[in-house]
């Protein structure tokens, strides 16, 4: 019985990944535009760092390379994190826009399967896109990664997945609560994460309230930990505190976000908000 149920849910889980793959393929022109936009954004950050010397702000070549690497790691990670966040957070908005939201919500599957399927598709796609941009960076900039500890960076990256998905699921609730304004609110959340998580600067430069918010953001630990590992060779043992914090955040955020999503779904069904037009 449990085996059958698990098989049923696994089948649906694969269905969501398969569906997203088909959608990415069918909307390939849009995806190409977004990829180009991401690439150009990351490159412009890289060239901004290159241009610092011409402004007389950085004189030492070593410092310039370190600064460039610092910014590029931030830009690349933000591209990945924001893309995964966006895909998960907009899962509901997208279905509402397509007009399939009711069909998906009346399917005989657990909501957890639905959400995890969307998360898995987003992670796979996010990694693929970040890898393409990463290859472009390696080709265009002379990046000194001789100090990098890839194992530690990878471990932090993997640990960051859980809280990132939790945040994404939390944000995907917004369009369920408000069909008209939820999408804009999700963009606002993304913007706040960019501000407080130390994507291009250490969070210590932020004013106290934002600094505090930055401490609570899992992306802060991801960016800081991966940077330490790639730029300064942070050991796996040294990365454990960051990994621990990220896993703890994930263990709290994922179940909490799924529970809140369930409550929001109940509310949406009570108020009749699942319709396409809301």
């Amino acid at each position: 019985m449990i085996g059958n149920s698990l098989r049923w849910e696994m089948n649906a889980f694969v269905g969501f990944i398969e569906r997203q793959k088909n959608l990415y393929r069918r909307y390939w022109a849009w995806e190409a535009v977004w990829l180009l936009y991401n690439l150009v954004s990351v490159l412009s950050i890289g060239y901004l760092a290159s241009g610092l010397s011409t402004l007389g702000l950085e004189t030492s070549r070593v410092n310039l390379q370190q600064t460039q690497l610092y910014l590029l790691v931030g830009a690349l990670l933000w591209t990945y994190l924001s893309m995964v966040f966006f895909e998960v957070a907009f899962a509901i908005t997208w279905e509402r826009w397509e007009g399939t939201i009711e069909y998906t919500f009346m399917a005989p599957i657990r909501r957890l399967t639905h959400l995890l399927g969307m998360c898995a598709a987003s992670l796979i796609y996010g990694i693929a896109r970040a890898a393409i941009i990463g290859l472009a960076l390696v080709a265009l900039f002379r990046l000194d990664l001789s100090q990098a500890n890839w194992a530690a960076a990878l471990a932090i990256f993997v640990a960051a997945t859980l809280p990132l998905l939790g945040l994404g699921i939390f944000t995907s609730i917004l369009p369920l609560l408000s069909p008209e304004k939820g999408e804009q609110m999700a963009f606002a959340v993304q913007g706040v994460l960019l501000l407080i998580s130390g994507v291009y600067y250490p969070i210590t430069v932020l004013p106290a309230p934002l600094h505090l918010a930055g401490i609570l953001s899992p992306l802060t630990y991801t960016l800081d930990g991966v940077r330490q590992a790639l730029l300064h060779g942070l050991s796996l043992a040294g990365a454990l505190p960051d990994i621990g914090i990220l896993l703890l955040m994930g263990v709290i955020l994922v179940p909490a976000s799924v529970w809140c999503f369930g409550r929001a779904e109940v509310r949406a069904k009570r108020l009749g908000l699942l319709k396409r037009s809301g």
Partner: protein
Amino acid sequence: MAIRASELNTAAVEVDGISKQFGQEGRIQRVRPWRKTSKPKLALDQVSLHVDSGRITGILGANGSGKSTLIRILATLLTPDAGTAFVFGYDVVKQPAAVRRHINRVSVEASFFKEMSPWENMLYAARLYGSGGEGTRGRVEASLERLGLPLDTLDKPMKQLSRGQQQKVAIARSFLTTPSLLLMDEPTTGLDPRSKREVQELVRSIRRDRAATVLLCTHDLQEAEVLCDRVVVIDQGRVLAEGTPAELIRAHAGRDEGSLEDAFMQLTGKRLEEDEEEKEE
């Protein structure tokens, strides 16, 4: 999903005193003079209904009469404010997962990913309903062929298909999941006469070939008359009458050779067209 032997003896749908109102949050509204507030609308008012298994039951009513709200409640997409609703003995509020395994819905708006092809949409549906492995493509092709859709449409984006073709794919998709109860919400609205007739023939074949129960919402009186074993007339969220088309005509048409339209006019005090005109205004 096939129904169990024990479920065959229960009614396909049992609705008791369902009410649903929109436009209120269930809490005291603060007075905000700058904010336009809409008047709460009672979509369903103490609706009770019994649908036997293996029949086509029509829910007949004008736009805004509460048909779609009823279908959404049975599809577990809306929760009623009061009353209970059971599908094959399962409570739509307390046991939504069990209900969902027995139902599928064809709505007036074809719910598809428009850029994806019929095949991709149907594969997605199959995955959600426990299949999608080997042999699915063959079953989808057979299903579409039976509906008279050329196989070269299978891999085209849905947006390139006509509305009639899209509706046929929606019906084929519902066949694929073998529901015991098919909820059809105005499946022929907006179709040309030929497509309409083809879809109606499909509805007949569902009962004939699959022994499935069909709950058909329509505001097409002729369609209800020719397709339905029983008809429930609903207006302003209330059930006004129910019976076979012949029974309703006999009891409410007011003359011996009347039609279902005569019966409907007698029951509601107006023609369907009038309601639609009022709604447009």
